[in-house]
């Protein structure tokens, strides 16, 4: 099996060394540098997740990816995720097809809800309509990806009649995934629409998702589709030692989860729960390159997955800490995981 490894960011707002928040603009410029550096460090994919908040000022990741594309040659670039339900599938296709053109065919899209729900009120959508919005728009996106004129009618956007949507891709559909957070019906939908499966695992034991890879494989068979890859997306932080990584990450993690807990219903993390999540059975990849590599290798095997995307960074970490994370992940973690997986 061929394994690939990515880094994802939500444009987590940086702080300077004194703890003073960097501007949104500076944070975005830093993300460009991190993406360019990720290629130099040997990372296969760089993803940007759509968010619309003060601490994740990243609503237009495709623009940032285009800047990275112009300065790189090999690394694949994509969303992680695009909140399709509150966007227009035609515009999403156009933006990423444009990125695909700029980058010479390196674009990808991960569709989903992610942890981002603030786009619904922002763009005038009702969260209660989430299911219908996602189902319709994902189906249309699947048609758009095939190229050629599209005829489509639904409830969530204007109909299309034999519509040619540009820019055309040069070599067929670009890789598209559906992000799944634990709903098995979303796994079936990914298979039905012919999208790859992205398992977003941000808490609890990752191996509980093992049946989902199997479900995906069987569902693809059932729908008469060829096998498609499975990726795992999880948060983490790599530093020289376990102690340093945890000391840097923990206060930032606690702060951000405490901030979003009331609206998402998360429990406020305790040092005990953090130790569990960063331990061998948990979902956070925080530690030295060896610790993180061991955990990635174990979970890729357990989950039958062939790509791992580490969501690096947290609001309040410094650009230097993130560059170190990118470097250690690319130069040490990835080669070590490949070695462990033989």
């Amino acid at each position: 099996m061929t394994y690939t490894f990515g880094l994802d960011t939500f444009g987590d707002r940086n702080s300077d060394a004194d703890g003073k928040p960097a501007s949104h603009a500076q944070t975005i410029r830093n993300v460009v540098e991190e993406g360019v550096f990720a290629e130099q460090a040997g990372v296969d994919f760089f993803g940007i997740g759509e968010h619309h908040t003060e601490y994740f000022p990243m609503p237009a990741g495709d623009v940032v990816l285009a800047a990275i594309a112009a300065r790189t040659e090999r690394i694949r670039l994509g969303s992680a995720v695009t909140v399709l339900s509150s966007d227009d599938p035609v515009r999403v296709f156009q933006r990423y097809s444009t990125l695909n053109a700029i980058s010479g065919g390196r674009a990808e899209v991960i569709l989903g809800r992610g942890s981002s729900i603030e786009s619904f009120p922002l763009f005038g959508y009702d969260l209660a309509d989430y299911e219908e919005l996602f189902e319709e728009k994902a189906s249309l996106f699947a048609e758009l990806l095939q190229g050629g004129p599209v005829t489509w009618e639904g409830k969530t956007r204007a109909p299309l009649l034999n519509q040619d949507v540009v820019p055309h891709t040069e070599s067929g559909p670009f890789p598209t995934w559906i992000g799944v957070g634990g709903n098995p019906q979303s796994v079936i939908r990914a298979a039905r629409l012919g999208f790859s499966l992205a398992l977003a695992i941000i808490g609890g034991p990752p191996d509980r998702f093992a049946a989902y890879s199997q479900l995906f494989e069987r569902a693809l068979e059932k729908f008469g589709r060829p096998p498609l890859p499975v990726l795992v997306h999880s948060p983490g932080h790599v530093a020289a030692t376990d102690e340093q990584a945890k000391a840097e990450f923990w206060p930032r993690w606690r702060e951000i989860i405490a901030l979003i807990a009331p609206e998402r219903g998360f429990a406020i993390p305790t040092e005990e729960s953090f130790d569990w999540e960063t331990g061998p059975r948990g979902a956070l990849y925080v530690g030295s390159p060896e610790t993180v590599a061991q955990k990635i290798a174990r979970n890729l095997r357990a989950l039958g997955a062939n790509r791992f995307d580490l969501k690096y960074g947290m609001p309040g970490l410094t650009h230097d800490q993130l560059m170190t994370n990118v470097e250690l992940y690319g130069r040490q973690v990835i080669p070590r995981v490949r070695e462990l997986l033989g």
Partner: protein
Amino acid sequence: MSKQGRLAVLGAGHVGPVIARLAVKAGYPVAIATSGDPEDIALITELVIPGAQPRWASDAIADADIVVLAIPLHRFLDLDPGVLDGKLVVDAMNYWPASDGVLEPFEGRGSSEVVAGRLAGSAVVKALNHIGYHELEDRARPAGAPDRMAAGVAGNDPVAVATIADLVDRIGYDPVRLESLRAGRVLQPGGPVFGVVLTLPEFEQAVRQDARSLR
């Protein structure tokens, strides 16, 4: 009702399959249903909930002693209450406006009280809603295990509460009985035990402290 009645789990999303798996493991006969054709969830049932039966919702409910509601709350509003008449209903749903949108009927009230109000012919018990679906299975332990955690069971009908307390115990948690659905508000989002997994003494203390703070 036999000691381990038949379960119908409504909902095959994040929560339903987890509860169904735990119930299968505890020895309950379990049917799972969505609003659609059981054929649509046959593969999910086979691989993710082995041992459960995918069925039409009406058939699953008709044969069940206990019906677990694990559907999005806005879908509950579309459900015909009559189909649940005479049933013991476990409300594992949550009202969580920031995540799922505002639903007028649930504003400012205990969500299970609203559910019970609509299901006038059913005995409604609030349970299995406050431990995250990503943790519910992993934290389950047999009775007497030193690291066993607690789970709340709230309802107005003591017989129904006893039956569900038994279910909660069998699937792996120390049940904490709360004497009414009103008291069950402590299990809701924003309450002291929502999203946190606590031992029995911790759970009881959190509930007591919360009751004091409300006075």
